[in-house]
């Protein structure tokens, strides 16, 4: 294979409607959603940019679309959208709360070309229900069992906070018993409805301990136990691993570097949890926006970061979570998304 491989992904929130109302959700108010035709045009817009990059720079793009909501299964045209994206050569995955996935739906998911379904599970029954609503745990577990029974590649994702950090080991055991492929962990981002939960965020020391513990669980578990959180990735590196000192990101936070988010109404954000609108896919050429957006450029530019992050040897492969940096900055009355990740202990 010739050319340079470049993974690029789009997180596409095709609806903000949801059958749950989770306390820690990053949504704050419902936004209108694009029609099927508008979504197809958005996919074409992004595909045009990717094709252009591939030809112009002799790169092999491995583009993927991660479709989510809200709850994506509330859209009646979900499978048509998935089919269209697949036909345009994107690999496709889904993120859902799992509560609507009965056996026939799981079979339908199996029959389309989905690489992975990620289901959110935020604790043992009492904890999960206290965050996501009474009865949701049982329905989510049913959804997971239906997906596993149909042989769908799937993972469980847990949003970690002080509320559930102590349940990690039991949840890994549960995930093993359910025979899912992986259990992954993300940090709480106190934005949207979750803004009220800032006090439940882990301290830097708790975050580091939690991720070190995950690495140990992963060594012992029969399934993959991991986190794509940049801080977790850094903590899993060998102590003597040499970090290439590039002035462009080569890993870590993907926002504006390896990926982008499209919201239900077409608003483009670097990341859905990073509530900064930089345009609307219905009004702009995505290729132009990727090249021009000052916000995206700042996320890629080492000099633009505050000292604590800019001077860190791990900057090229980390940069922490920019959404959490922004959420904490806003709680302090400013919009500085380029400051220190407040949960970083390095």
């Amino acid at each position, binding site marked *: 294979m010739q050319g*340079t*491989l*470049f*993974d690029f*992904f789009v*997180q596409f929130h095709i609806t903000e409607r949801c059958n749950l109302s989770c306390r820690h959700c990053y949504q704050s108010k419902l936004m209108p959603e694009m029609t099927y035709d508008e979504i197809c045009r958005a996919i074409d817009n992004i595909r045009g940019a990717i094709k252009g*990059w591939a030809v*112009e*720079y*002799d*790169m092999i793009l491995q583009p993927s679309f991660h479709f989510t909501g809200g709850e994506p299964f509330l859209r009646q045209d979900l499978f048509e959208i998935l089919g269209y994206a697949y036909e345009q050569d994107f690999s496709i995955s889904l993120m859902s709360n799992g509560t609507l996935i009965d056996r026939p739906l799981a079979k339908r998911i199996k029959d389309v070309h989905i690489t992975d379904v990620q289901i959110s599970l935020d604790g043992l029954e009492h904890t999960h229900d206290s965050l996501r609503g009474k009865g949701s745990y049982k329905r989510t577990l049913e959804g997971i069992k239906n997906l596993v029974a149909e042989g769908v590649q799937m993972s469980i994702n847990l949003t970690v906070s002080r509320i559930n950090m102590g349940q990690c080991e039991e949840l890994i055991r549960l995930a093993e018993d359910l025979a899912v492929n992986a259990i992954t962990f*993300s940090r709480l*981002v106190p934005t949207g409805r979750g803004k009220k939960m800032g006090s439940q965020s882990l301290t830097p020391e708790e975050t580091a301990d939690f991720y070190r513990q995950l690495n140990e669980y992963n060594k012992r578990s029969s399934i993959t136990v991991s986190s*794509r*959180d*940049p801080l977790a*990735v*850094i903590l899993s*590196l060998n102590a003597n*691993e040499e*970090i*290439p000192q*590039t*002035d*462009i990101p*080569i*890993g*870590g*936070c*993907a*926002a504006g*570097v*390896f*990926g982008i*988010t499209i919201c239900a109404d077409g608003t483009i954000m670097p*990341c*859905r*949890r990073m509530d900064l609108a930089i345009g609307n896919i219905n009004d702009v050429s995505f*290729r*132009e926006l*990727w*090249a*021009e957006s000052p916000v995206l*450029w700042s996320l*890629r530019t080492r000099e633009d970061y505050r000292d604590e992050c800019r001077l860190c040897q791990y900057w090229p*492969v*980390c940069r922490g*979570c920019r*959404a959490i940096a922004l959420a904490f900055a806003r709680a302090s009355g400013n919009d500085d998304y380029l400051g220190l990740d407040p949960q970083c202990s390095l």
Partner: protein
Amino acid sequence: MKETSREKEARFFLKMKEVLAKGKEVSKSCLA
């Protein structure tokens, strides 16, 4: 002279291509 959109794009991808070609990608990306 003002840098054009295509020049900005090239600045990003040529740099990215250079580091990726050296096999320097050491971590997977996160966009939750």
